[in-house]
């Protein structure tokens, strides 16, 4: 087994571990549209990262964070619905990214790998971003866990109980930006959202607490990453889509198996 496989596995596992809890909150808070819009705008980060030679992950994180902040600022206007604002901001960033891509030869050559990931080309620097960024996000999430969960259950109730909801919401969106930025290399801009939501949706059927769902989601993500890598080696398939497809198979299995377990253990 070559070093590149080891790096691919380490990178994929790192992204899967942080995707479990972050993806669970995305599912609970109905932020799937936000997550996918954000990941599309990450393409602008890819282009700028290459043009300015500052690295793809930090540039993508910065662009995603900027999109999140602009979205929050603009969504105060009640006359345009939140998801419309999000669509405008994120896709303006995507369009801008595509413009840059069109003008810069080196980026154009790599476009496909940034859309669908290039996990077998993960470098040591990529690993540093994935694990550094991932651990930072997990640490931040541990701090805001209870307030974020409280406002996920009922935002006004949490506000009355003293949760600074605007701050916590912003911090979580920035956390999603970081995950998006570091996961680009593994599954690509188009498929990041599936690595966030499919393991979480799979875990839901086997868990009764938020914490266990987040943990099981991480494990499902790890299984999907390793299974997808293995499949891409066996069949010479693109790794990013293979990871997502393995996750999807796990989800379908959970749909089939969960009723049997539920029958044995009582209702969830």
């Amino acid at each position, binding site marked *: 087994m070559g070093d590149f496989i080891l790096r691919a596995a380490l990178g994929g596992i790192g992204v899967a571990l942080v995707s479990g809890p972050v993806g669970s909150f995305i*599912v609970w808070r109905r932020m799937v549209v936000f997550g996918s819009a954000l990941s599309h705008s990450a393409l602008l980060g890819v282009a700028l990262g290459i043009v300015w030679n500052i690295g793809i992950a930090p540039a993508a994180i910065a662009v995603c964070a900027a999109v999140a902040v602009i979205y929050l600022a603009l969504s105060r206007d009640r006359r345009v619905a939140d998801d419309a604002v999000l669509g405008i901001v994120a896709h303006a960033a995507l369009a801008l990214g595509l413009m840059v891509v069109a003008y810069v030869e080196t980026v154009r050559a790599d476009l496909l790998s940034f859309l669908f990931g290039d996990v077998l080309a993960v470098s040591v620097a990529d690993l540093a971003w994935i694990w550094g960024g991932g651990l930072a996000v997990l640490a931040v999430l541990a701090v805001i866990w209870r307030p974020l969960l409280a406002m996920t259950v009922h935002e006004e109730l949490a506000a*009355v*109980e003293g949760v600074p909801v605007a701050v916590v919401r912003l911090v979580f969106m920035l956390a999603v930006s970081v995950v998006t930025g570091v996961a680009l290399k593994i599954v690509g801009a188009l498929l990041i959202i599936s690595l966030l939501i499919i393991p979480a949706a799979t875990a839901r059927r086997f868990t009764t607490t938020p914490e266990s769902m987040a943990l099981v989601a991480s494990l499902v993500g790890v299984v999907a990453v390793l299974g997808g890598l293995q499949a891409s080696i066996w069949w010479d398939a693109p790794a990013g889509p293979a990871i997502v497809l393995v996750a999807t198979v796990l989800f379908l299995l959970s749909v089939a198996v969960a009723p049997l377990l539920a029958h044995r253990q009582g209702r969830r």
Partner: protein
Amino acid sequence: MPNAAPMPLIEGVGLTVIRNGEPVLDRVDIAMASGETVTIVGPNGAGKTTLLRVLMGLMRPHSGTVTRRPGLRIGYLPQQVPIDPALPLTVRRLLSLRIDATNEARLQRLAEVGARDLVDRSVHTLSGGELRRVLLARALLREPDLLVLDEPVQGVDITGQAELYGLIAQVARARTLGVLMVSHELHFVMATTDRVLCLNHHVCCAGAPESVRAHPEYLALFGGEAAGVAVYHHHHDHKHGASGEVLPLPHTHTEPHNPNDHHHG
């Protein structure tokens, strides 16, 4: 309880909220003493929930001021708590969100509201009444000075409604809690309410439940239905309009509303 507390738990003066050019709240005055139970009644869209939100600081009024007693702890029961089935949550876990309490304290509060057996249940399998009890126990765990309840019996069957109102009165009395609630069913809360505030964007009338129930503006809003259900006091203080709606008689505003006019039994 006499007017021992000089500072109200919470006080709103001249609260005005404008939405789409129309006043949702129009110069509303309200004050609550500790241990007092105040019920807000009014038709749908009268601004009742908006008033609660302004008082709790969830939204700012366009004019007017809200003063909360320093360190005031509010236990809030929103009108609806739709917990997404995608979020796995047991009653035990719901009680520990934002609240540091011992397990014994949690079980005690649950027992107090008759929900001790629900502790390990998933919140998604609870009935409307069971969820209300759990949320009440949760609010009590914060050891509040003031309970704010927005239509606390919505989605609960009739017998459950009476039980819940009795329970709220009981836990409030045991702790000298202030209770501010929005309710449609004045006849249910009559016995346990110190003061009623009848709201239709402005304060139509306020005072002891008996006096409010006889007030022409209250009758204009609720008609014979509200006055007649519990005790048969249905005098024709109103007339009916062309389509059968209830119209007020010419005499209104028999007494000016005074927000500091507490009625303690």
